[in-house]
Every structure is written in C-alpha cells, then in structure tokens.
C-alpha cells in the first residue's frame, strides 16, 4: 500500500472541496478500494471518506425511491419499500458478497467496484490493459471462464462484478452526480462503458465527480420482479450468469418487461433486444426462449466461457417463467 492522507467529508460539497484540493479518491466501505490499494493496483495519495454523506432512503412524491450513495448494501436490502416494490434489488444485493461485506459496502462503492478478473488483480505478474493501457490482456488466451460474452473488445474481456447494478439497470435507475460543474443525472445503464479500446476508462464520471444518490422510478409493476444468480458455490461467489427481470402481463400478453444480465459484460447488461422481442408477445416458454436467443445472438464465447451462452438462455427463460407463473 502506498502512503496516503485521510479526511472525512461532512457533506457532498465538503467532499468535492476536499477532492479538488487533494486530488483524492472517495472512500465508501473500502471493501474494494482498500483491497486494490493493498495490491498497489490503486495508489491514491488521498482518501476522502464519504460514508458520512446521505445514508437515507427517501420516498419521493411521485412514488419513486431516492437512495443515498452512502447507504450500506445491507440497509438497502432490508428496506421495507425496496423489498415490497423492488424485490429484484433486495435479492440481488443479498446474493452478493457476504454479510460482513454487505454491512460495510455502500451504494456508491458498489456501483464503482472494479472487475474481479484475476489478471487485473495480479499486479506483479500479469499483463492487463485495464491496469496498464496498451500492455496486453492475459485473460483473452488465459483463464476466462468468468469473463464476458457480450460487448467485449480485443483489448479487454472482463465483466462488471456487481449484482446490485444488474437490478438497478433493469429498473431504469438514475444516478445523481455532483461535480465541479454542478449536479447532473445519468441513467445507470449509461454510467459504465463497454471496454472498446480503453478498458481503463470505465465510466462516464468526470474526475472528482461524486455519486450522491440513486433514484428508482415509481413503477408499481416492478413489484413483480426477481433476481437469480448462478454461481460456482452456494454463496460468496461472483455470478457466472445473473438475471434481473420484471414482468407485466395483460391478459395473455406481455405488456411490459425489464430484463438485465450480470456476469456477461463489462457493464450491467440491459437486454434491450430481448425486451423488444417480448413486448406484446404471449408469455410462453417458447417466446421467452426466442427473446433470450435474440439477445444472445451477438454473444461471442472465449476459450472457457462458451457455456455461459446456453446458461444465460436457460436462466432467462426460467426467470421469466417463474415471474409469469407468479402472475398467472
């Protein structure tokens, strides 16, 4: 770990001020950033603790929810309105990491956690374009069982590891940001980049920009939603494939749907193609399968993760069937 200074921000403006003065990084629960600092993959010279920022979950007049960036993952998952109206979000969070880590982790930190690609973590011994742009990627020909099947690039095939973000992406969540130029909002689906040629450049956030909150829109039908995570052991493992979905059925037709995938891409993957195929279609296994296939038509397997394509298809179908069954 490289030596650094430490300061605690009292509010969002204070955090911005401290960050611009010291050129520092924001610290949430530290469950990812501190690990990366220990490995000297991240070497900030200043840390600004932002866990003192908004840690409330507020109900908005329009019925939506505003979740402060410093709310702990556990608190989000336990919140009554989240559980009742956005069950996929509660389930996604509870399927991630461990109880101890979720007690520490914040919403802001969870969104900005970095990939778990083993070559990215092996600072001393492996090549990684995300750590050292231009150096090469040891994962493409190496261990890539956990890696991306959608939206990857020849420079990076890593996945975004968050479970929470997959549910947020499905629910059309919006991130509230505060930067030197003031406030702005970004749909969560646009916050993260695909790797393209610069996998080190991971988000649309500007230097020093702070996530202050995440907003969930008021859609009553999101109460019919779920999250399913497929992984290598029963708990405490990152997703091989995960699916967040919400389904709205009128009569025997799907009138609306939200579908997002985890473990498949460099960002939480909103399955727009599948959604388009499903809207207006009958809620049958056959159509679920066609929709999944439409989404996965562009999937490109690596040497060890070809199984993910079939697994994603099977899991999407099973999740939609489960939701359809609940509604029927």
């Amino acid at each position, binding site marked *: *770990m*490289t*030596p650094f200074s430490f300061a605690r921000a009292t509010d969002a403006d204070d955090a911005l001020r401290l960050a611009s003065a010291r050129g520092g990084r924001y610290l949430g629960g530290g469950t990812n950033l501190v690990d990366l600092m*220990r490995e*000297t993959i991240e070497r900030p010279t200043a840390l600004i603790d932002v866990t003192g920022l908004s840690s409330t979950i507020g109900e908005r007049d329009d019925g939506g929810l505003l979740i402060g960036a410093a709310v702990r993952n556990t608190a989000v998952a336990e919140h009554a309105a989240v559980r009742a109206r956005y069950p996929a979000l509660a389930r996604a969070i509870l399927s991630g990491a461990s109880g101890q880590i979720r007690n520490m982790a914040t919403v802001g930190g969870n969104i900005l956690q970095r990939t*778990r690609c*083993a*070559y990215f*973590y*092996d600072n*001393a*011994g*492996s090549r990684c374009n995300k750590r050292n742009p231009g150096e090469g990627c*040891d994962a493409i*020909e*190496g*261990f890539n*069982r956990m890696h991306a099947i959608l939206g990857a690039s020849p420079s990076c095939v890593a996945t975004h590891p968050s479970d929470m973000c997959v549910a947020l992406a499905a629910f059309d969540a919006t991130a509230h940001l505060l930067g030197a130029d003031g406030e702005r909002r970004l749909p969560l689906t646009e916050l993260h980049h695909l790797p393209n040629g610069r996998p080190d450049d991971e988000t649309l956030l500007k230097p020093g920009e702070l996530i202050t909150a995440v907003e969930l829109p008021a859609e009553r039908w999101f109460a019919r939603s779920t999250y399913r995570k*497929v*992984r*290598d*052991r*029963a*708990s*405490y*493992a990152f997703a*091989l*494939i995960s699916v967040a979905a919400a389904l709205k059925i009128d009569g025997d037709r799907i009138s609306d749907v939200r579908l997002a995938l985890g473990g498949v891409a460099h960002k939480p993957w909103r399955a727009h193609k599948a959604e388009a195929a499903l809207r207006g279609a009958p809620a049958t296994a056959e159509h679920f399968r066609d929709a999944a296939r439409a989404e996965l038509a562009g999937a490109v397997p690596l040497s060890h993760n070809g*199984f993910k394509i*079939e*697994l994603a298809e*099977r*899991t999407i*179908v*099973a999740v939609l069937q489960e939701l359809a069954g609940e509604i029927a």
Partner: protein
Amino acid sequence: MSIVKDAAEAAKGLAQAVTKKAIEVAPDGWVPGGTPDPLIRNQHGHVGKPVSRIDGPLKVQGAARFAAEFTLYGMTYASVLFSTITKGRIATLDTADAEAAPGVVLVMTYRNAPRMRPMPAFGSNRMAAGGDDLPVMQDDRVHWNGQPVALVLADTQEQADHAKSLIRIGYEAEAATTSFEAAKADGTEPGQFQGDPLQVTIGDAETVLASAAFKVDETYRTPRHSHAAIEPHAATVMWDGDMLVVHDATQAVTHTAWSLAHMFGIEQDKVRVTSPYVGGGFGSKTLWQHQVLGAAAAKLADRPVRIVLSREGVFRIVGGRSLTEQRFAIGAEKDGCFTAMIHTGTTIMTPHSAMPEPFIVATRSGYAADSFKMEVRVARIDMVANTFMRAPGEAVGTFAMECAIDELADRMGIDPIELRIKNEPEKDPTVGTPFSSRNIVEAYRAGAERFGWARRQPPGARREGEWLVGLGCATGTYPYYRMPGGVARISIGRDGHACASVAAHEMGMGTATAHTQVVAERLGLPLDQVTVEYGDSRLPGLFLAGGSQQSAAIGAAIIAAHRALVVELLKLAGNDSPLAGLKPEEVGGLDGGLAKLDEPARWESYASILARAQRAELSVEAAAPAPIENQHWSMHSYSALFCEARVNAVTGEVRIARFLGSFDCGRILNAKTAASQFRGGIIMGLGLALTEETAFDERTGRVMSASLAEYHIPAHLDVPAIDVMWTNIPDPHTPMGARGIGEIGITGTGAAVANAIYNATGRRIRDLPITLDKLLSAGIG
C-alpha cells in the same frame, strides 16, 4: 448426530463408574504375539467420552496464542516479494528505494542473505521437514513462479509491505516446463513413495480385462489443490545469542528444529521450535521458505522477526496437492467377482520435490481380484513443490476407484454396495497379510439403514421441481501408520497431578484432549489432574502430526512411559506400602494411586508413595517399541459414505442435501472431537468434489487463484448437516484399539458425490471439480 448424543448420555451415566476398576499396565501388547491394550476392555473410563476440547475456551476467548501472536521486544515485521517468472535468473536488482522507505530495517536478497545449506527435503533424513531441496535465497536462480526473491524487514507490517512494492527486479527468463502435456512429452518416470515403488503387478490384468464378462475402463482427472487452512503460515523468530527460537505453526516441531539447525550449520539443541496451536495443517504446516527467511533476516538484523505469509504468499510458496490423470479399469465375472483391477496414470511434481501423489495406495488393499496392475508415473513441471494434502493419494485415488465401481455396478444392474461386499477381500489382496480389523461391511449395513439407501431410484428418475435428486455411496480407506521415534515423559507430583510430555502437535484435532483422557484413564486420575504438554521441540520424541498417525505414536510412547513409571513407583513404595512385593503386571491405576488388580483394597495413592519416599516428583521417560505391527497386518481405517445430491436441471448447480459417514476406525477416543474430524474431512471432500481447483496458468506457470475469493473452498451454505456414526470396534493390534481418523473423512467423499450426481442426472463426470459447466455440456436438463 444422535450417535454423539448417545455417547454423551452414556458418558453421563457412566461417570460414576469412572476409576472404579484398576487399569492394568499395558504390555507392548498390540505387537504380534502380545495381548491387546487393556484399555480396550475398560468401557467405563474417560476414553471415548465426548469431552469438550481443553483449549476450546481459550480459543473462543482469543487467548490461545498462535505463532503470529508472540510479541518480542524490538520486533520487526517481514514482507516477502515473490518472483514473477518461472525459471531463469535475477539480472538486475534495485533495492535502494525500499531501503530508504520509512521504517525499513533492511532488505534481504540473495546478495546479503546469510549463507545456509539447501533445504533438507522431507524423506531425505528421518528429521527432514522441507518441501523441496532448494537453496533459500542463496543465488540469483529462479525455480518457480512465486519463489521468494527479496524480503523487507520494517518496524511495522505496513511499512514492510510498502517498501516491498518499491523493489525493482529485472529477470532473464529461461524456457520452463509449465504444461502437463509438455511435461508428459518430456517423458515420465516411475513414482516412488516413502522409498517404495508405486507399482503392483499380479497376474496379467490387461489380458484378463480384455476377456472379462463385464468391464469399465475410464480415465479420471483431478486438478491441483492449494492449501487454505484458516491460519496462514507464520512464525515469530529470534536469535538469543547463538540460540535460534522459532514460535512456529507446524505439524513437525522436532523435524523443523533439526532442519533449521542443519541449514544454519548449528547443533540441533541450539534450535527451539514451539508450536502451541496450529490453525489447521492438513500436511502444509511443515518447513517452507518463510521460517528459514525469517530466521535468516533475524540474524542479519539482529532483531526478532515476525513473518506472516499473506494469503497470496501461502498460494505461492506452500505447495499443494498435485494433479492426476488416472486410468481405472475393472473386469468382472457375470456374478460380479472382480477378475482384473487396473489403476495407472500420471501425476506431476517438480524437479526438486519427492512427493508423487500416490493415488494407487488405497487400491492396493481395497478389493479382492484375480489380477492387478497399478502404477504411478511422474512428469516434472516447474512449479512450487507439491506436497502432502489431507489423504495424499487416497483422496484422489478413491475418486477413480469408487466411481469405477459405481459405473460397473450400473452396467451390471446391481447395487453398488452389494458389488463392493461381493469383492470384500479376506486378507490384503496384494500383500497377503491378514487385516488387523476390518468391519467395512458392518459400516455399510448400518450406514445404509440410517441413510435410507433402499429408497434410491434408477439414474435420472427423481425430480422435484427444477431439482434432480440422487443418492450415491463410496468407500473410503486410509492406512494405519505409526512412525518410529515416539518417546514420552510422564511426571507425577506429590499433589497427585500428572503431566505427560511429548513433542507432538495440536492443530485443532483435539489431540491434547484425547490424550488427557487416555493418560487419566491409565493412571486412574480425574481429567483435571492430568496435563498433556506438547508443541515444543525440547519435549521428548520425534512426532509428526501427519499420516493420521500421531495418536498411535503418542499412545505407544505413553504406554512405554506408563510402564516405566509404575516400575519406579513400586520401587519407591518399598516394603511399608500395601503394594509391597507386587510386580508391575499385578497393579493398575485406580483412584489417584496404584492398586492390586484383583484386590483393589491393596492401594496407595501416588501422593502418599512420593511423600513417603520424600520425593516432590517422579519423572520417567521411555520410548515406544518399533512400529512392526504394520508388517504383520494390513491395517486401515474405513468408511462407508452416503450422499444425497440435488442438481438443478436448468443451471447445473449442485447442492448436497444430506451426507452420512459411517466409519470403522477402531476405538474412538473422544466422540466429540472425532465427530469434528470426520465432518471436517467430509467438508474438505465436498470442496474436492465440487469447487476446489488451483488456477495454474499453463502458459506462465503462475497460480492465478491466489486468494480465497478465487480459490473456492465450500462456504457454509455448501455444507449440509453431516451425520456421522462409527462401529467403535477396537483394533486389537493398535495402542488403545484406535486407528487414525484425521484423513479418512476426505477419502471417498469425491466419489460419493460424483456417484450421487450420476444417480440424480444419469450423467457421469470424471473430471473434478464437478462444476455446472461440465454438467451442462454433458447435457443435463
């Protein structure tokens, strides 16, 4: 669970009876021609009771001091830098920035490390404890990816870690062998384990197989495994003048002391190694480079050193289980009798280790057959020296054997338990010696009944929603060993308190507790009047907490010391004692003293004997007899394992719903700690079956799973309730009637799981770990 409860109830009821009968002194009774240990006959003593661990309260309070918790005056902290190439030499080395960093005491590299002899590899000498035979930081050579190349000492761990990141090293890499295929292409050689060739040929098994009525002939693969004990390897080291003191976490204190003395060129009595507690060993807590580097740096700095390997460090410099590729073939008559058994294959080791994963050892005495062919061949790879890991050989060898039997039973359409029983040997099938005690059939019958084996259905027949459900079974075996070198001291004081001292180890198994029970019962003392002292190379004997043999080794040494103690006590008692004129064979321990066996009224307390003799204490030491029992009998622990697996038809995820282990390991010394050993072994076996695999990048020879986030041991949710039971039939040919219990649990578990998955899905996976992608590509659902 209920067997433990039964034992607890029984123990409660019997507590009154404890010490009411004198326990005679054991002769060297378990050796051929002798009589069994009299402790076996005594069903009403401390032995067998579910006594809670003596160190339990200390551990839950955090008061048990582990190797990394000794604090010494002026202590420094070490951080180790590992090589990033596999083979070659260090070409450039720049430590200036690290040396200038805050708090740094020194940076040690091959340039300034004290001169030392190479590591003495395990087996090269009876006291050698090293994982390989390489020099430690003596030259610019790199032998594996992850080898220590520099060490920083600083005033705090954080300063040391930071300074380490400032060291710059340039390498000149050379071609290395890092893939299994390349290593095999380089040529293989026959494996040797503990001096014996890993080869058996009886009859012409290939020809017999070719004409067999039924056969299986398949290839099974098991991957590398890394050690992941809860306590990372650590040592706190100091030089006190010319004396080296190492507070270590080791399963071999005396071996380690000798090996360090050898490397530093000093007398063995100038090295003291303590190891009061070990947070899990499993074969990994022997001598690796960290203790040596710690001692070398302490010498260079002239200050004490604490060296704690990071989790990554454990993956990089402590070896694990090697991979195997095994052919298992069985030929059988129409009636199911085996005519041929073939178990051959290849494992890998390094040019510097001497440990070929001996996967045929369980096959040698597993089943009766007319002909056998077994061989382990070895290919060499440049990697960290592979080593012992819980049931080396058996854990992976039984995966092949017990799956093959399940496959054969399936092909023949008979119950796999009946097929096993049909081929139950009368004597050791390859050596010819009688079994000392083998009750595997009883274990199967009892286990099958309790598990509900009769409800098993044909493969793929049982489905509950998305879940395919199946039952599987497998046999586990692990040999009884007793290594030479056991010596014990028993001291008894005028307060009637006895202390037994052995240079043995407590790694969480419950050794100290079980042997407190044994000593208390032999001496006729309550448990709180007995202490077992262990974990210090200054104590008597050469013990290895390995091979599931430590209890037998301690037990035999205690028997010898006990007899010597009684001889001395009778001498001291003299003519004024009620014991006057009695011979050692005529007396036994009772109520805190000695009594005539058939006339318990002739009794005198230890305290009274010592007081009259005006002795504060009596202390005797004696050595165990040579372990010749293994030459006369085929001696093994056994298990019959039952598993219920649920496989998700959509995703291929596997969940173990139930597991039962029915064990035959001789007399159980402590029902509670034994149950934990069995369960722990089975849990490790679930990891072997389903999740564990070291990601070794065959392009670079680098371990890519050097953390517990990547290296998947079972999480709590992966572990179901595990039921354990045991025959408790004493082995007449072992001390206390007991056989080893430490490694048997993992043995056979991989096959029990694979067989249950087959029964659930109709799909056979012969390649561990059984991950969901393998089931998907086998076409489940």
